[in-house]
């Protein structure tokens, strides 16, 4: 209850263990075992292990990890679609784990919506009725909810498809319906569980652009799940990487690429073009004795690639500054090296 301003979602020590004697596993030393050993010993699956993080209002927070790392389970625990085994969750200051069924419904109806990997559309309803479903279960009268649904359909670019049925739409359009349905009740938080994994690459790119646009226009807090690193980098302000149910590293794209916490993360980010993610801060060095210090000054957070024009124009090394203080210098050779993917 403490931090209702400044935190949209707050998760502390969340556990989800599937299986018969889940709560007994939790207190015991078994909980520390790795998943395969735990399964062999107790038959339980620890899908989420001691996860903590918080999401700021209006942030796009990405959770990523390989298949089976517990991402879906985590996101479903947030609104208790799956009952967590232990831990605290608060959304906009409300303690989710302690909420009564009615409060929980209220939360799902008005404040948190979800978009699913396999869309979860209702095949027996027209598109407009799919979008209006959330309002319908709230008891909004038909005319009002249809009006709202049509507005949202326009927002996601599905004008003129209101009367169609889900099975007449392409995959990309179906997921737009899924998005529209989640947006219809105007929630504060959107949870997106691999919303674009089932789409082909071109459509996926369109949809990602769409999410970026929507985020700009409606400014929702988003928790976005993906196993695609490029997607994570494109959308996420902060990224949490999960392995075997636990978060192994949480930070900005730059932090993950620049300083991976372990082999797993390093492996994950190996193919990322560093010059497009890292800023000058990561490659600047203290000036050598004979170097000129009259080159152009750039802020330390400048992405390396964006420093290329300045480096081309000036013979002198670029000065990297932060708060009017000189952090170091970067010359053409440093920039070329990082563009070529060398370094560290």
């Amino acid at each position, binding site marked *: 209850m403490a931090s209702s301003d400044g935190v949209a979602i707050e998760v502390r020590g969340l556990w989800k263990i599937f299986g018969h004697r889940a709560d007994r596993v939790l207190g015991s030393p078994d909980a520390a075992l790795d998943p395969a050993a735990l399964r062999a010993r107790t038959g339980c699956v620890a899908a989420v292990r001691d996860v903590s993080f918080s999401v700021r209002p209006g942030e796009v927070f990405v959770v990523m990890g390989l298949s089976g790392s517990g991402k879906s389970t985590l996101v479903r625990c947030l609104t208790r679609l799956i009952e967590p085994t232990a831990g605290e969750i608060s959304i906009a200051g409300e303690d989710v784990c302690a909420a009564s069924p009615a409060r929980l419904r209220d939360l799902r109806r008005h404040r948190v919506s979800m978009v699913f990997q396999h869309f979860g559309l*209702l095949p027996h309803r027209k598109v407009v009725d799919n979008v209006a479903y*959330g309002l319908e279960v709230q008891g909004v009268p038909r005319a009002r909810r249809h009006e709202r649904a049509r507005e949202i359909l326009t927002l996601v670019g599905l004008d003129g498809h209101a009367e169609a049925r889900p099975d007449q739409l392409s995959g990309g359009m179906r997921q737009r319906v899924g998005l529209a349905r989640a947006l219809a009740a105007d929630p504060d938080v959107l949870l997106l569980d691999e919303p674009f994994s089932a789409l082909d690459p071109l459509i996926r790119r369109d949809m990602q652009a769409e999410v970026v646009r929507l985020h700009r226009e409606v400014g929702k807090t988003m928790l976005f799940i993906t196993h695609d690193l490029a997607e994570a980098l494109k959308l996420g302000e902060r990224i949490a990487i999960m392995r075997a149910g636990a978060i192994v590293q949480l930070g900005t794209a730059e932090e993950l690429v620049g300083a991976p916490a372990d082999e797993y993360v390093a492996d994950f980010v190996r193919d990322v073009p560093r010059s497009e993610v890292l800023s000058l801060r990561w490659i600047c060095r203290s000036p050598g004795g004979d170097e000129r210090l009259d080159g152009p000054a750039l802020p330390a957070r400048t992405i390396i690639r964006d420093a290329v024009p300045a480096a081309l124009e000036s013979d002198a090394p670029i000065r990297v500054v932060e708060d009017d203080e000189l952090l170091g210098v970067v010359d053409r050779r440093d920039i070329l090296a990082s563009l070529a993917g060398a370094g560290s």
Partner: protein
Amino acid sequence: MTTSQASPAPPAQAAPGAPPGSAGSAGSAGSASSAGLPRWALPLAGAAVAVAAYVAFRGTATLPHDDDAAPFQLVNDLRAWVDANRNRSPLFLFFVNYVRLFVGGLYDVFHLVLSLPGWAGLTGVAAGLGWLTGGRRIGLTAALGFGSFGVLGLWEASVATLALVLTAVLLSLLIGLPLGVWAGRSPRLRRLLAPVLDVMQIMPTFAYLAPMVLFFQIGPASAAVATMIYSIPPAIRITALAIEQVSASAVEASTSLGATRWQTLRKVQLPMARATIGLAVNQTIMMALSMVVIAALIAAPGLGSDIIRGLTRANVGLMLPAGVAIVVMAVVLDRITMSAATRAPYETAGRTRWIVAGALAVGGVALGRALPAEFPQEWVLRFAGPVNEAVAWAKFSWYGFTDAVRNLTTEALLNPLQSVLTGSPWWLVSAVVLAVAWRTGGPRPAAVAVGCLLATAPLGLWQHTMETLTTVLVAVALTLIAGLLLGIAAARSPRFAAVQRPLLDAAQTMPAFVYLLPALALFGATRFTAIFASVIYAIPPVVRLVEDGIRNVSPAAVEAALSCGSTDRQLLWKVRLPLARRAILLAANQGIVMTLAMVVVGGLVGAGGLGYDVVSGFSQRSDFGMGFAAGVATVLLGIMLDRITQGADERNSTPGSNRMTTRKKRIA
């Protein structure tokens, strides 16, 4: 020629103990063995021991039948007590009698409503309903169907049967659908219900009747309750399946938007399960239709009484019109419900359809008002006489053939087997059943099977159980032989399959006793009649399962066998049949339970055994106890046979799911 795929061992080299199922079927595949005994050594030794025991102990420890056995008297006393206390005991005063009144009243209401519009009116309404659900074709089918009831001279009886069916179906659905929905959402309830429904589905129709009489006396009320109980399993099962199958992601999406459980049920699960629930309704109606006929034994009104009378008097001409009427009713109700169920979910009937349907119904009712309520006598077709003449002619002119077939089966199969079974000590029969069930299903099914078998002894019905078992075994053997041949033929020749399919489809929608008709016409009232009827009754599903099983054998296996030079015949015996073993076992299971149901009904046409006990229990008050016990014994026998052949079901994949689908068409 060499093979690259190794998996299905080419037949020539099939070593003993190699792939399970490649030997055993013919018993000859496993040639000389090097390591241990060949697969068939143990069964062979077991058989030898059994034969030796039979020779040594024949005639001892048999349990001959006694019409006045103590258990029968016990039931008779119970009935006497019930009759004496019907209006005194609180159980009856406050529960049973109310149920009886309520169900009876419901039947009266249905009967009244159906009779009010007159024959033209009801036909018009049926046609309108058909048009509404399925368009012109179904509308026409319904009109012709209902018209034919009158033409057959059975309008009144058909209306009574329809009212009884509707009463029973309404009650079944009122109880079955909610229970099914609940079971679909609660795995715990599903686990709880599964064994109960399993047993209900292998219970022969006759077993339901005697307890009904005990509680509700005879008449429409107890007939409706018996029919309801009989037809409720598919309502529960298929509805549960329908709800369970609704895409989990749609349900989750609904929950994630804050829908209550009730909202999710009403707005997501029920609409998405609609087509399958339609199938549940359809199956419930079909089951009810066949039970309603049997229920004539406890004085159900309607077409059944003609059929039962015809059967007991071996009078084909008497029962043929009623049989035709029942089949027509089954077809009409089947088409209407199926087309209502399979209509695409978002498609609502167009406005013209509503108008035409309304016009038909209103027009029919108006016509019904204008015309006399009775179906005009001069339009009635009477063909009992000619039919009986034709039957007599057929009997006479084919006598040589039919008599030879009948005598051959009776002398060569039935009599020897029966004397073996009834002449063996009870412990020997039980030991053999135990061994067989253990081998096919494992220890638990074996224990259940033997338990059921042994329980028939204290019921005082051991001997009659053995007689019925004899008939069932012979019928099953014939069914399996014929079913295998037809199934193999269909799997090998698409053209043959194309001819056979529609016949099988039609056969599977017909109520059970319809099959007694040709049997009775050809063979008169004998034990063989029941066998013949059960063979033709049980063949369609057997053929189907065998055909599908053989056809679904992995093409890779077939290709591998072909590539090492198998002939067609080798391919069939060494690859296709062994690999289709599971389907064939399932076919045996289906065939055996259906056969039992029919053999018991065959008690009406001279099959003897338990079926006859049940029938005489209804015709003579002093035999009521025996009939009651015989009903219980048929159930025990059914469970026993089911357990013995259940290996195919239980050992594989998801129990329940395939039983659900393969059993839904069972109508007995």
